[in-house]
Protein backbone atom coordinates (compact mmCIF):
# COMPACT_ATOMS: atom_id res chain seq x y z
CA UNK A 1 0.00 0.00 0.00
CA UNK A 2 2.99 2.27 0.46
CA UNK A 3 3.68 2.14 -3.24
CA UNK A 4 0.13 3.25 -3.82
CA UNK A 5 0.57 6.12 -1.43
CA UNK A 6 3.79 7.19 -3.19
CA UNK A 7 2.05 6.91 -6.50
CA UNK A 8 -0.70 9.11 -5.22
CA UNK A 9 1.82 11.73 -4.15
CA UNK A 10 3.24 11.79 -7.65
CA UNK A 11 -0.23 12.08 -9.16
CA UNK A 12 -1.32 14.60 -6.53
CA UNK A 13 -4.06 14.42 -3.91
CA UNK A 14 -6.25 16.69 -1.79
CA UNK A 15 -7.28 16.58 1.84
CA UNK A 16 -10.96 17.43 2.08
CA UNK A 17 -13.55 17.82 4.81
CA UNK A 18 -16.99 16.43 4.15
CA UNK A 19 -19.91 17.64 6.21
CA UNK A 20 -23.33 16.07 6.15
CA UNK A 21 -25.64 13.53 7.71
CA UNK A 22 -25.22 10.61 5.35
CA UNK A 23 -21.45 10.29 5.50
CA UNK A 24 -21.44 6.50 5.32
CA UNK A 25 -23.57 6.63 2.19
CA UNK A 26 -21.10 9.10 0.74
CA UNK A 27 -18.22 6.72 1.44
CA UNK A 28 -20.10 3.72 0.02
CA UNK A 29 -20.90 5.50 -3.24
CA UNK A 30 -17.29 6.62 -3.60
CA UNK A 31 -15.90 3.14 -3.11
CA UNK A 32 -18.45 1.60 -5.44
CA UNK A 33 -17.36 4.02 -8.16
CA UNK A 34 -13.76 2.85 -7.64
CA UNK A 35 -12.59 6.13 -6.08
CA UNK A 36 -9.85 5.39 -3.54
CA UNK A 37 -10.09 7.15 -0.19
CA UNK A 38 -7.63 6.96 2.68
CA UNK A 39 -6.88 8.36 6.11
CA UNK A 40 -10.54 8.86 6.99
CA UNK A 41 -10.88 10.51 10.41
CA UNK A 42 -14.15 11.34 12.03
CA UNK A 43 -13.92 14.83 13.47
CA UNK A 44 -17.45 15.13 14.78
CA UNK A 45 -20.83 13.49 14.37
CA UNK A 46 -21.34 14.97 10.95
CA UNK A 47 -17.83 15.84 9.83
CA UNK A 48 -15.12 13.65 8.42
CA UNK A 49 -11.71 14.44 6.90
CA UNK A 50 -10.23 12.24 4.20
CA UNK A 51 -7.64 12.15 1.45
CA UNK A 52 -8.59 11.64 -2.15
CA UNK A 53 -6.78 11.75 -5.48
CA UNK A 54 -7.25 14.71 -7.79
CA UNK A 55 -8.91 12.47 -10.35
CA UNK A 56 -11.34 11.23 -7.74
CA UNK A 57 -11.99 14.72 -6.43
CA UNK A 58 -13.36 15.75 -9.77
CA UNK A 59 -16.05 13.08 -9.54
CA UNK A 60 -17.08 14.19 -6.07
CA UNK A 61 -19.42 16.99 -7.05
CA UNK A 62 -22.02 14.59 -8.29
CA UNK A 63 -21.79 12.33 -5.23
CA UNK A 64 -21.90 15.23 -2.79
CA UNK A 65 -25.05 16.46 -4.40
CA UNK A 66 -26.67 13.05 -4.15
CA UNK A 67 -25.91 12.62 -0.46
CA UNK A 68 -26.49 16.27 0.47
CA UNK A 69 -22.96 16.72 1.79
CA UNK A 70 -20.71 19.75 1.68
CA UNK A 71 -17.14 19.29 0.49
CA UNK A 72 -14.32 21.67 1.42
CA UNK A 73 -10.66 21.50 0.48
CA UNK A 74 -8.37 21.58 3.48
CA UNK A 75 -4.99 21.09 1.76
CA UNK A 76 -3.47 20.25 -1.58
CA UNK A 77 -0.51 17.88 -1.73
CA UNK A 78 1.51 16.31 -4.46
CA UNK A 79 3.84 16.96 -7.34
CA UNK A 80 1.35 18.63 -9.69
CA UNK A 81 0.88 21.45 -7.20
CA UNK A 82 4.64 21.87 -6.79
CA UNK A 83 5.10 22.05 -10.53
CA UNK A 84 2.35 24.62 -10.79
CA UNK A 85 4.07 26.75 -8.16
CA UNK A 86 7.32 26.72 -10.09
CA UNK A 87 5.65 27.50 -13.40
CA UNK A 88 5.89 31.13 -12.41
CA UNK A 89 9.56 30.90 -11.55
CA UNK A 90 10.97 30.25 -14.98
CA UNK A 91 14.37 31.77 -14.20
CA UNK A 92 14.79 29.37 -11.30
CA UNK A 93 14.09 26.36 -13.47
CA UNK A 94 16.41 27.61 -16.17
CA UNK A 95 19.14 28.24 -13.61
CA UNK A 96 18.77 24.71 -12.30
CA UNK A 97 19.23 23.27 -15.78
CA UNK A 98 22.27 25.44 -16.46
CA UNK A 99 23.77 24.35 -13.17
CA UNK A 100 23.33 20.70 -14.01
CA UNK A 101 24.73 21.21 -17.49
CA UNK A 102 27.84 23.04 -16.26
CA UNK A 103 28.40 20.45 -13.59
CA UNK A 104 28.17 17.64 -16.12
CA UNK A 105 30.60 19.37 -18.44
CA UNK A 106 33.09 20.07 -15.68
CA UNK A 107 33.15 16.51 -14.47
CA UNK A 108 33.79 15.22 -17.98
CA UNK A 109 37.38 16.33 -17.72
CA UNK A 110 40.29 15.00 -15.76
CA UNK A 111 41.42 17.49 -13.15
CA UNK A 112 43.69 15.39 -11.01
CA UNK A 113 46.38 12.82 -11.66
CA UNK A 114 47.61 10.84 -8.69
CA UNK A 115 50.63 8.54 -8.77
CA UNK A 116 51.31 6.01 -6.03
CA UNK A 117 53.82 3.28 -5.36
CA UNK A 118 57.00 4.73 -6.75
CA UNK A 119 60.01 4.79 -4.47
CA UNK A 120 63.04 5.30 -6.66
CA UNK A 121 61.38 6.65 -9.74
CA UNK A 122 60.57 10.32 -9.78
CA UNK A 123 56.90 11.19 -9.77
CA UNK A 124 57.46 13.97 -12.25
CA UNK A 125 59.05 11.58 -14.74
CA UNK A 126 55.98 9.37 -14.69
CA UNK A 127 53.73 12.42 -14.95
CA UNK A 128 55.60 13.57 -18.05
CA UNK A 129 55.20 10.20 -19.66
CA UNK A 130 51.52 10.18 -18.91
CA UNK A 131 51.16 13.67 -20.33
CA UNK A 132 52.76 12.51 -23.56
CA UNK A 133 50.17 9.79 -23.87
CA UNK A 134 47.33 12.11 -23.18
CA UNK A 135 46.72 11.79 -19.45
CA UNK A 136 47.10 15.14 -17.75
CA UNK A 137 44.81 17.62 -16.03
CA UNK A 138 42.45 19.28 -18.46
CA UNK A 139 41.84 16.50 -20.96
CA UNK A 140 38.48 14.94 -21.72
CA UNK A 141 37.77 11.80 -19.77
CA UNK A 142 36.16 9.97 -22.63
CA UNK A 143 39.16 10.22 -24.92
CA UNK A 144 41.40 8.26 -22.59
CA UNK A 145 41.96 4.60 -23.21
CA UNK A 146 43.57 3.32 -20.03
CA UNK A 147 44.57 -0.07 -21.40
CA UNK A 148 46.42 1.49 -24.29
CA UNK A 149 48.34 3.86 -22.04
CA UNK A 150 49.20 1.04 -19.62
CA UNK A 151 50.68 -1.00 -22.46
CA UNK A 152 52.65 1.95 -23.83
CA UNK A 153 54.09 2.92 -20.47
CA UNK A 154 55.05 -0.64 -19.61
CA UNK A 155 56.92 -0.88 -22.90
CA UNK A 156 58.63 2.48 -22.56
CA UNK A 157 59.65 2.45 -18.93
CA UNK A 158 61.43 -0.77 -18.15
CA UNK A 159 61.91 0.21 -14.54
CA UNK A 160 58.24 -0.53 -13.93
CA UNK A 161 57.10 -4.06 -13.26
CA UNK A 162 53.38 -3.32 -13.07
CA UNK A 163 51.18 -0.37 -13.87
CA UNK A 164 47.51 0.14 -13.21
CA UNK A 165 45.56 3.18 -14.37
CA UNK A 166 42.03 3.73 -13.15
CA UNK A 167 39.68 6.58 -13.89
CA UNK A 168 37.26 7.49 -11.13
CA UNK A 169 35.31 10.72 -11.01
CA UNK A 170 37.73 13.37 -12.22
CA UNK A 171 40.77 11.67 -10.83
CA UNK A 172 43.18 9.40 -12.62
CA UNK A 173 44.81 7.08 -10.16
CA UNK A 174 48.05 5.46 -11.27
CA UNK A 175 49.60 2.65 -9.27
CA UNK A 176 53.08 1.48 -10.16
CA UNK A 177 55.41 -1.15 -8.87
CA UNK A 178 59.07 -0.81 -9.66
CA UNK A 179 61.08 -3.65 -10.97
CA UNK A 180 63.75 -4.94 -8.69
CA UNK A 181 66.62 -5.33 -11.11
CA UNK A 182 68.14 -8.76 -10.94
CA UNK A 183 71.93 -8.64 -10.61
CA UNK A 184 73.55 -8.38 -13.98
CA UNK A 185 74.98 -11.68 -14.89
CA UNK A 186 76.64 -12.65 -18.08
CA UNK A 187 75.02 -15.39 -20.11
CA UNK A 188 75.98 -18.88 -19.07
CA UNK A 189 77.59 -19.77 -22.35
CA UNK A 190 79.90 -16.79 -22.39
CA UNK A 191 83.29 -17.49 -20.77
CA UNK A 192 84.19 -15.19 -17.90
CA UNK A 193 86.41 -14.81 -14.85
CA UNK A 194 85.42 -14.09 -11.30
CA UNK A 195 87.23 -10.96 -10.08
CA UNK A 196 87.28 -9.09 -6.78
CA UNK A 197 84.77 -6.25 -6.43
CA UNK A 198 86.73 -4.69 -3.58
CA UNK A 199 90.01 -5.06 -1.74
CA UNK A 200 89.98 -7.65 0.95
CA UNK A 201 91.52 -10.54 2.82
CA UNK A 202 90.38 -13.92 1.49
CA UNK A 203 88.80 -16.18 4.07
CA UNK A 204 87.50 -19.00 1.89
CA UNK A 205 87.19 -19.92 -1.75
CA UNK A 206 84.64 -22.35 -3.12
CA UNK A 207 85.14 -22.98 -6.81
CA UNK A 208 82.34 -24.56 -8.80
CA UNK A 209 83.60 -24.00 -12.30
CA UNK A 210 86.98 -22.62 -13.30
CA UNK A 211 90.52 -22.52 -11.99
CA UNK A 212 91.14 -21.07 -8.55
CA UNK A 213 93.79 -18.36 -8.50
CA UNK A 214 93.88 -17.31 -4.83
CA UNK A 215 93.71 -19.10 -1.51
CA UNK A 216 92.61 -18.30 2.04
CA UNK A 217 94.83 -15.78 3.70
CA UNK A 218 95.71 -13.88 0.50
CA UNK A 219 95.21 -10.19 0.25
CA UNK A 220 93.56 -9.20 -2.98
CA UNK A 221 92.94 -5.86 -4.64
CA UNK A 222 89.96 -4.73 -6.55
CA UNK A 223 89.83 -6.26 -10.00
CA UNK A 224 92.16 -9.12 -9.21
CA UNK A 225 91.15 -12.41 -10.77
CA UNK A 226 89.97 -14.84 -8.10
CA UNK A 227 88.65 -17.71 -10.23
CA UNK A 228 89.91 -17.88 -13.75
CA UNK A 229 87.74 -18.87 -16.65
CA UNK A 230 90.73 -19.99 -18.63
CA UNK A 231 91.51 -23.48 -17.44
CA UNK A 232 95.09 -24.42 -18.16
CA UNK A 233 95.68 -28.12 -18.05
CA UNK A 234 98.86 -29.68 -16.69
CA UNK A 235 99.46 -31.30 -20.01
CA UNK A 236 101.08 -28.67 -22.19
CA UNK A 237 99.80 -30.16 -25.38
CA UNK A 238 96.19 -29.54 -24.50
CA UNK A 239 95.15 -25.95 -25.24
CA UNK A 240 93.55 -24.01 -22.38
CA UNK A 241 89.76 -24.34 -22.10
CA UNK A 242 87.58 -21.29 -21.72
CA UNK A 243 84.69 -21.69 -19.26
CA UNK A 244 82.12 -19.56 -17.47
CA UNK A 245 83.66 -19.39 -14.00
CA UNK A 246 81.35 -19.83 -11.00
CA UNK A 247 82.05 -19.87 -7.29
CA UNK A 248 81.83 -18.12 -3.94
CA UNK A 249 84.79 -16.18 -2.56
CA UNK A 250 84.31 -14.97 1.00
CA UNK A 251 86.65 -12.23 2.16
CA UNK A 252 87.03 -9.74 4.95
CA UNK A 253 86.47 -6.23 3.71
CA UNK A 254 86.65 -2.80 5.26
CA UNK A 255 84.51 0.25 4.85
CA UNK A 256 85.63 3.59 6.18
CA UNK A 257 83.87 6.89 6.55
CA UNK A 258 85.10 10.21 7.93
CA UNK A 259 82.83 12.91 9.26
CA UNK A 260 84.06 16.18 10.76
CA UNK A 261 83.02 16.99 14.31
CA UNK A 262 81.26 20.35 14.50
CA UNK A 263 80.87 22.10 17.80
CA UNK A 264 79.18 25.09 16.30
CA UNK A 265 76.02 24.43 14.39
CA UNK A 266 73.53 26.64 12.67
CA UNK A 267 69.95 26.12 13.67
CA UNK A 268 66.82 27.60 12.27
CA UNK A 269 64.50 28.77 15.00
CA UNK A 270 61.09 30.20 14.37
CA UNK A 271 60.67 33.66 15.79
CA UNK A 272 56.89 33.32 15.97
CA UNK A 273 56.09 35.85 13.29
CA UNK A 274 54.23 34.49 10.33
CA UNK A 275 52.47 35.77 7.25
CA UNK A 276 49.75 34.20 5.09
CA UNK A 277 49.48 34.78 1.38
CA UNK A 278 46.32 33.60 -0.38
CA UNK A 279 46.01 32.75 -4.02
CA UNK A 280 43.48 30.97 -6.20
CA UNK A 281 44.16 28.24 -8.68
CA UNK A 282 41.68 27.92 -11.53
CA UNK A 283 42.10 25.34 -14.26
CA UNK A 284 45.71 24.83 -13.18
CA UNK A 285 46.62 28.50 -13.47
CA UNK A 286 47.53 30.42 -10.38
CA UNK A 287 46.17 33.82 -9.58
CA UNK A 288 47.46 35.59 -6.54
CA UNK A 289 44.88 37.50 -4.61
CA UNK A 290 47.31 39.72 -2.78
CA UNK A 291 50.21 41.59 -4.18
CA UNK A 292 52.36 41.57 -1.11
CA UNK A 293 55.65 39.80 -0.98
CA UNK A 294 57.30 37.84 1.76
CA UNK A 295 58.32 40.35 4.42
CA UNK A 296 60.98 38.20 6.04
CA UNK A 297 64.50 37.54 5.01
CA UNK A 298 64.85 34.05 6.31
CA UNK A 299 61.74 31.97 6.23
CA UNK A 300 60.16 28.58 6.00
CA UNK A 301 57.22 28.02 3.68
CA UNK A 302 54.28 25.75 4.35
CA UNK A 303 51.82 25.47 1.50
CA UNK A 304 48.28 24.29 2.02
CA UNK A 305 46.17 23.62 -1.01
CA UNK A 306 42.44 23.18 -0.58
CA UNK A 307 40.71 21.78 -3.62
CA UNK A 308 37.01 21.95 -4.25
CA UNK A 309 35.90 18.38 -4.55
CA UNK A 310 32.85 16.28 -3.97
CA UNK A 311 33.97 13.23 -2.11
CA UNK A 312 37.40 11.94 -2.87
CA UNK A 313 37.17 11.33 -6.55
CA UNK A 314 35.18 14.15 -8.04
CA UNK A 315 37.74 16.90 -7.95
CA UNK A 316 36.90 20.23 -9.57
CA UNK A 317 39.59 22.55 -10.93
CA UNK A 318 39.14 25.23 -8.29
CA UNK A 319 41.53 25.50 -5.38
CA UNK A 320 42.61 27.94 -2.75
CA UNK A 321 46.28 28.01 -1.86
CA UNK A 322 47.41 29.36 1.47
CA UNK A 323 51.15 29.87 1.77
CA UNK A 324 52.19 30.38 5.34
CA UNK A 325 55.63 31.89 5.85
CA UNK A 326 57.27 31.46 9.21
CA UNK A 327 60.12 33.79 9.94
CA UNK A 328 63.29 32.01 10.92
CA UNK A 329 66.29 33.17 12.76
CA UNK A 330 69.53 31.45 12.12
CA UNK A 331 71.16 30.99 15.46
CA UNK A 332 74.66 29.76 15.95
CA UNK A 333 74.52 27.21 18.68
CA UNK A 334 77.42 25.75 20.57
CA UNK A 335 77.11 22.13 21.56
CA UNK A 336 79.48 20.47 23.93
CA UNK A 337 82.19 18.28 22.62
CA UNK A 338 80.83 14.90 23.63
CA UNK A 339 77.49 15.51 21.99
CA UNK A 340 79.18 16.78 18.84
CA UNK A 341 81.36 13.69 18.70
CA UNK A 342 78.42 11.32 19.00
CA UNK A 343 76.48 13.22 16.33
CA UNK A 344 79.40 12.93 13.91
CA UNK A 345 79.89 9.26 14.68
CA UNK A 346 76.21 8.53 14.10
CA UNK A 347 76.23 10.34 10.79
CA UNK A 348 79.28 8.39 9.63
CA UNK A 349 77.67 5.11 10.68
CA UNK A 350 74.47 5.88 8.79
CA UNK A 351 76.30 6.82 5.61
CA UNK A 352 78.29 3.62 5.76
CA UNK A 353 75.23 1.48 6.35
CA UNK A 354 73.93 2.59 2.98
CA UNK A 355 77.14 1.68 1.25
CA UNK A 356 77.49 -1.79 2.64
CA UNK A 357 75.72 -4.40 0.49
CA UNK A 358 72.87 -6.30 2.05
CA UNK A 359 74.49 -9.69 1.76
CA UNK A 360 77.54 -8.63 3.76
CA UNK A 361 77.88 -9.68 7.37
CA UNK A 362 79.16 -6.99 9.75
CA UNK A 363 81.90 -8.42 11.94
CA UNK A 364 83.27 -5.40 13.77
CA UNK A 365 82.63 -1.67 14.07
CA UNK A 366 85.40 0.69 15.13
CA UNK A 367 85.12 4.34 16.08
CA UNK A 368 88.17 6.59 16.22
CA UNK A 369 88.74 10.30 16.48
CA UNK A 370 91.64 12.01 14.78
CA UNK A 371 92.83 15.55 15.32
CA UNK A 372 94.38 17.76 12.71
CA UNK A 373 96.84 20.66 13.18
CA UNK A 374 94.10 23.18 13.96
CA UNK A 375 92.63 21.07 16.73
CA UNK A 376 89.61 20.10 14.62
CA UNK A 377 88.34 16.62 15.35
CA UNK A 378 87.20 14.09 12.75
CA UNK A 379 85.17 10.97 13.52
CA UNK A 380 86.40 7.90 11.66
CA UNK A 381 84.14 4.87 11.54
CA UNK A 382 85.65 1.64 10.31
CA UNK A 383 83.39 -1.33 9.67
CA UNK A 384 84.76 -4.75 8.96
CA UNK A 385 82.54 -7.14 7.00
CA UNK A 386 82.54 -10.65 5.68
CA UNK A 387 81.13 -10.90 2.19
CA UNK A 388 81.29 -12.56 -1.16
CA UNK A 389 83.48 -10.28 -3.24
CA UNK A 390 83.33 -12.23 -6.48
CA UNK A 391 81.73 -10.68 -9.56
CA UNK A 392 81.68 -11.95 -13.09
CA UNK A 393 83.88 -10.30 -15.67
CA UNK A 394 84.05 -11.31 -19.30
CA UNK A 395 87.40 -12.58 -20.47
CA UNK A 396 89.05 -9.85 -22.45
CA UNK A 397 86.06 -7.63 -21.91
CA UNK A 398 85.42 -4.57 -19.72
Amino acid at each position, binding site marked *: *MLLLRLWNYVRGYVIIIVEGYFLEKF*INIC*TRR*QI*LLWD*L*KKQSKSRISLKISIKGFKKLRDIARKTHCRVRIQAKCGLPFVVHKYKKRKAFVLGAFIFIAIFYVLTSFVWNVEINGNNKLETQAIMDYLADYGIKPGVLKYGINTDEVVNKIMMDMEELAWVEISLKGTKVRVEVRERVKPPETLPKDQPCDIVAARDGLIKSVFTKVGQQQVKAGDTVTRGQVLISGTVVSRNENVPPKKVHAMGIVNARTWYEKKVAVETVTEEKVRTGRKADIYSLELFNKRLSLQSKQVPFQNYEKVEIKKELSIGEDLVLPFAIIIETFYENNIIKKEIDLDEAKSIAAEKARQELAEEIPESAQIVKTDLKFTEDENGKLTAVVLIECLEDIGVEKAIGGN
Partner: protein
Amino acid sequence: MPQDRKKQNKRKKKEKEPGAGLKEKVTEILELPKEVILDLPKITLVGAGNLILENYKGIIEYSEERVRINTSIGIVKITGSRLVIKEITSEDIMVDGDIESFEFLK
Protein backbone atom coordinates in the same frame (compact mmCIF):
# COMPACT_ATOMS: atom_id res chain seq x y z
CA MET B 1 -30.86 -59.57 12.50
CA PRO B 2 -27.21 -58.85 11.66
CA GLN B 3 -28.03 -57.98 8.00
CA ASP B 4 -30.52 -55.32 9.19
CA ARG B 5 -27.95 -53.74 11.49
CA LYS B 6 -25.50 -53.51 8.60
CA LYS B 7 -28.11 -51.74 6.48
CA GLN B 8 -28.81 -49.30 9.31
CA ASN B 9 -25.11 -48.44 9.63
CA LYS B 10 -24.84 -47.84 5.93
CA ARG B 11 -27.77 -45.43 6.00
CA LYS B 12 -26.23 -43.50 8.89
CA LYS B 13 -23.08 -42.93 6.91
CA LYS B 14 -25.05 -41.62 3.95
CA GLU B 15 -26.55 -38.76 6.03
CA LYS B 16 -24.75 -35.54 5.16
CA GLU B 17 -23.35 -33.19 7.85
CA PRO B 18 -25.35 -29.96 8.12
CA GLY B 19 -23.84 -26.92 6.31
CA ALA B 20 -21.31 -28.92 4.25
CA GLY B 21 -22.30 -28.39 0.65
CA LEU B 22 -20.52 -29.79 -2.42
CA LYS B 23 -18.64 -26.53 -3.01
CA GLU B 24 -17.30 -26.48 0.53
CA LYS B 25 -16.15 -30.07 0.30
CA VAL B 26 -14.35 -29.52 -2.98
CA THR B 27 -12.69 -26.38 -1.63
CA GLU B 28 -11.54 -28.22 1.46
CA ILE B 29 -10.21 -31.26 -0.33
CA LEU B 30 -8.36 -29.29 -3.02
CA GLU B 31 -7.27 -26.69 -0.40
CA LEU B 32 -8.37 -23.74 -2.54
CA PRO B 33 -8.70 -20.29 -0.93
CA LYS B 34 -12.12 -20.33 0.66
CA GLU B 35 -12.73 -16.59 0.59
CA VAL B 36 -12.31 -16.48 -3.16
CA ILE B 37 -14.50 -19.44 -4.08
CA LEU B 38 -17.18 -19.06 -1.43
CA ASP B 39 -17.26 -15.23 -1.39
CA LEU B 40 -16.42 -15.04 2.30
CA PRO B 41 -14.89 -11.96 3.96
CA LYS B 42 -11.29 -12.38 5.12
CA ILE B 43 -10.29 -10.57 8.30
CA THR B 44 -6.64 -9.92 9.17
CA LEU B 45 -6.01 -8.57 12.63
CA VAL B 46 -2.53 -7.37 13.52
CA GLY B 47 -2.12 -6.88 17.25
CA ALA B 48 -4.99 -4.85 18.63
CA GLY B 49 -4.45 -1.83 16.44
CA ASN B 50 -4.81 -2.80 12.83
CA LEU B 51 -7.60 -4.68 11.07
CA ILE B 52 -8.00 -5.42 7.40
CA LEU B 53 -11.29 -6.73 6.14
CA GLU B 54 -11.27 -8.01 2.59
CA ASN B 55 -14.38 -8.58 0.52
CA TYR B 56 -17.11 -6.50 2.08
CA LYS B 57 -20.36 -5.19 0.76
CA GLY B 58 -20.70 -1.76 2.27
CA ILE B 59 -20.07 0.39 5.30
CA ILE B 60 -23.06 0.97 7.52
CA GLU B 61 -21.78 3.11 10.36
CA TYR B 62 -18.51 4.83 11.10
CA SER B 63 -17.65 6.73 14.23
CA GLU B 64 -14.59 6.96 16.44
CA GLU B 65 -15.89 4.24 18.74
CA ARG B 66 -17.87 1.97 16.45
CA VAL B 67 -17.55 0.76 12.89
CA ARG B 68 -20.20 -1.47 11.34
CA ILE B 69 -19.53 -3.17 8.02
CA ASN B 70 -21.88 -5.29 5.90
CA THR B 71 -20.47 -8.53 4.52
CA SER B 72 -21.83 -11.56 2.68
CA ILE B 73 -22.27 -13.43 5.94
CA GLY B 74 -23.85 -10.64 7.91
CA ILE B 75 -22.94 -7.43 9.68
CA VAL B 76 -19.61 -7.15 11.44
CA LYS B 77 -19.05 -4.70 14.30
CA ILE B 78 -15.70 -3.29 15.45
CA THR B 79 -15.67 -1.49 18.80
CA GLY B 80 -12.81 0.56 20.14
CA SER B 81 -11.50 4.09 20.49
CA ARG B 82 -9.88 6.53 18.09
CA LEU B 83 -10.88 4.38 15.14
CA VAL B 84 -9.76 5.67 11.79
CA ILE B 85 -10.35 4.18 8.37
CA LYS B 86 -6.84 4.03 6.97
CA GLU B 87 -7.78 2.94 3.50
CA ILE B 88 -10.98 2.02 1.77
CA THR B 89 -11.45 0.64 -1.71
CA SER B 90 -14.33 -1.11 -3.36
CA GLU B 91 -13.24 -4.46 -1.93
CA ASP B 92 -11.19 -3.91 1.25
CA ILE B 93 -11.28 -1.79 4.36
CA MET B 94 -8.35 -1.16 6.67
CA VAL B 95 -9.24 0.13 10.14
CA ASP B 96 -6.61 1.56 12.50
CA GLY B 97 -6.92 2.50 16.14
CA ASP B 98 -7.34 0.94 19.58
CA ILE B 99 -9.62 -2.00 18.81
CA GLU B 100 -11.47 -3.48 21.76
CA SER B 101 -13.76 -6.05 20.17
CA PHE B 102 -14.82 -7.56 16.91
CA GLU B 103 -18.29 -9.05 16.65
CA PHE B 104 -20.34 -10.96 14.14
CA LEU B 105 -23.93 -9.68 14.42
CA LYS B 106 -26.20 -12.41 13.28
